[in-house]
């Protein structure tokens, strides 16, 4: 492009001055924004040159196409990319924050279990399925359940006749391992039910309480909650996505003060320990 003309510099200059005017109008700039406009124009020119235009006309067209809104969009995508390519210290911070946020999720699951859910009983006969309700006691020690007549969304604990102390619960099984699912063959229509079935085994595996969750969300909620009570890890998909949401927001908030500051790739060097610890200010009376 540069060697095809005589007065290359003047031509490029003309194109760029026109670009400056156009960008000035697009940005609705005033006198004090001169630097900002120059920055934008510099970006426009450098980006267009980076794509190696073959002639001045191509250069002119490209540079005019890259108007202010394009620049804004590019800046925004770059900002988002910056956040995604996480530097090592940020990844470290993520790992450290995970346990704290896991605690929140566990709390939420137990709260939902205390609210309880309405379940259906599977019956071999195709008539109206019976409904039963199950909820955890407020002190997390007993699981109450019982039959309910109509669609009662919040029966009081006293109405639920049966109960299982949480301490007696031995294990939680899901899917095919459930006692009430063992007879069912893996037909396609049963697959859905299999995905929503879980059982609580208690009293040395003699007894089991069989559930069929109304939705996948309830299934995740209950299996997570029961795992919390059993002291096991939560591993449902809901947990993973919720953890991700909480974690990314927390990281964003932590990095708020690091705006426009580059993060080094490697840990900065640690100087030798100072020769003395005679501090000026004495805070020993305030520290504990």
């Amino acid at each position, binding site marked *: 492009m540069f060697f095809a003309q005589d007065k290359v510099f003047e031509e490029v200059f003309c194109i760029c001055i026109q670009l400056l005017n156009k960008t000035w109008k697009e940005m609705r700039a*005033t006198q004090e924004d001169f630097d900002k406009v120059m920055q934008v124009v510099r970006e426009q020119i450098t980006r267009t040159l980076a794509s190696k235009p073959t002639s001045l006309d191509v250069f002119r067209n490209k540079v005019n196409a890259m108007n202010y809104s394009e620049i804004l969009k590019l800046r925004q995508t770059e900002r988002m990319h910056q956040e995604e390519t996480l530097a090592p210290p940020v990844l470290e911070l993520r790992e450290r924050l995970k346990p704290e946020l896991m605690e929140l999720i566990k709390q939420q699951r137990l709260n939902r279990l205390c609210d309880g859910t309405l379940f259906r009983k599977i019956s071999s006969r195709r008539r109206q399925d019976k409904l039963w309700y199950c909820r955890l006691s407020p002190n997390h020690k007993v699981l109450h359940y019982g039959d309910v007549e109509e669609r009662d969304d919040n029966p009081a604990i006293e109405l639920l006749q049966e109960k299982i102390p949480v301490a007696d619960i031995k294990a939680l099984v899901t899917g095919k391992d459930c006692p009430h699912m063992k007879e069912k063959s893996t037909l396609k229509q049963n697959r859905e039910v299999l995905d929503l079935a879980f059982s609580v085994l208690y009293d040395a595996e003699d007894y089991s309480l069989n559930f069929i969750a109304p939705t996948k969300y309830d299934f995740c909620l209950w299996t997570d909650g029961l795992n919390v009570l059993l002291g096991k890890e939560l591993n449902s998909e809901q947990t993973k996505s919720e953890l991700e949401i909480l974690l990314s927001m927390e990281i964003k908030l932590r990095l*708020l003060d*690091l705006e426009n*500051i580059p993060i080094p790739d490697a840990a900065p060097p640690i100087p030798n320990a*100072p020769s003395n610890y005679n*501090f000026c200010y004495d805070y020993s009376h305030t520290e504990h």
Partner: protein
Amino acid sequence: MTRWIPSKKEKYGVAIYNYDSREEVELPLQIGDTVHILETCEGWYRGYTHRRKAKKGIFPASYIQLKEATVEGKGQHETVIPNELPLVQEVTTTLREWSSIWRQLYVNDNKEMFSRIRHMMYDLIEWRSQILSGTLPQDELKELKQKVTAKIDYGNRILDLDLVVRDEDGNILDPDQTSTISLFRAHEMALKRIEERIEEEKSQKHNIDINRQAKFAVTPSFSLFVTLKNVVCKIGEDAEVLMSLYDPIMSKFISENYLVRWASSGLPKDIDRLNNLKAVFTDLGSKDLKREKISFVCQIVRVGRMELKDNNTKKFTTGLRRPFGVAVMDVTDIITGKVDDEDKQHFIPFQPVAGENDFLQTVINKVIAAKEVNHKGQVWQPELQVP
């Protein structure tokens, strides 16, 4: 050996890397922590993080990026305020305040507020970055500031937090410098503005109705375009097919009939118009659209003998119009625009008259009332569109 001296110019900074303390006297840092620096010696700082003000310790200077700040107070009890745009600072503190409430919303399973606040927080973070990048011209900056303050005020309101009273530029009013009366007036105005915003958001939930009403306001009359594709029905004689719109609640027809003559061979009499049987029911006004139910009714009238079973060819009476049957379809959804129905073909089941003395009207009523029509495989095939 150098002494620890109180830092003069280095007062405030932010940690750019995680620092794990190895000794008791060292302060562990997490990336992004802001620190207040008290004294310095040999490349180490002594201070505390704003997250945990009580614990003081030393940390390497290389882990800190210094920032501009103003210092208030002296000596042991000085406090540090970073030198940023007041709006940016407000956004930062608001975000941190909201985040603890947001977590509580999660634990209490308040899904709707949780996701609303989440989106608002993300918007605020994005706008804050834009302001801090320093690349926005003045006009845009002003607009953005207004957007930010509106969002903050709205969020504070729906989270039941304190109302922040601002002046026209969006700066927080200083109670020491404004008179009580102007403070009160500003307070009133701010409340009103936020109430309006909340009303707007609530009405956006009934968005469909408003959109529809707006649509109706613009076009005062509508039309329904019907194409009749086929009548699959064993009649045995010539017939007339009448199509019209009917209001079942008020039990009356609201349009004229579209008549198609159908030959006994099973094709329309006018063979050239075989694929061209179209009609437009025009001039449907807003009153029609407000009707609870609108049905599209096709009546078939057999033209010919008195009774179909009559086989005595000599004693024919011809040209008599006898009711044959009815096909009814509920088009309320199509007319009100809820169902987008371009190019969709409908099959309407057909209900014949019960006996020779039955009126078509009663059959219509029966079909409308019945939920399941026993149609014995005879169908209509029109195609409906509302432009």
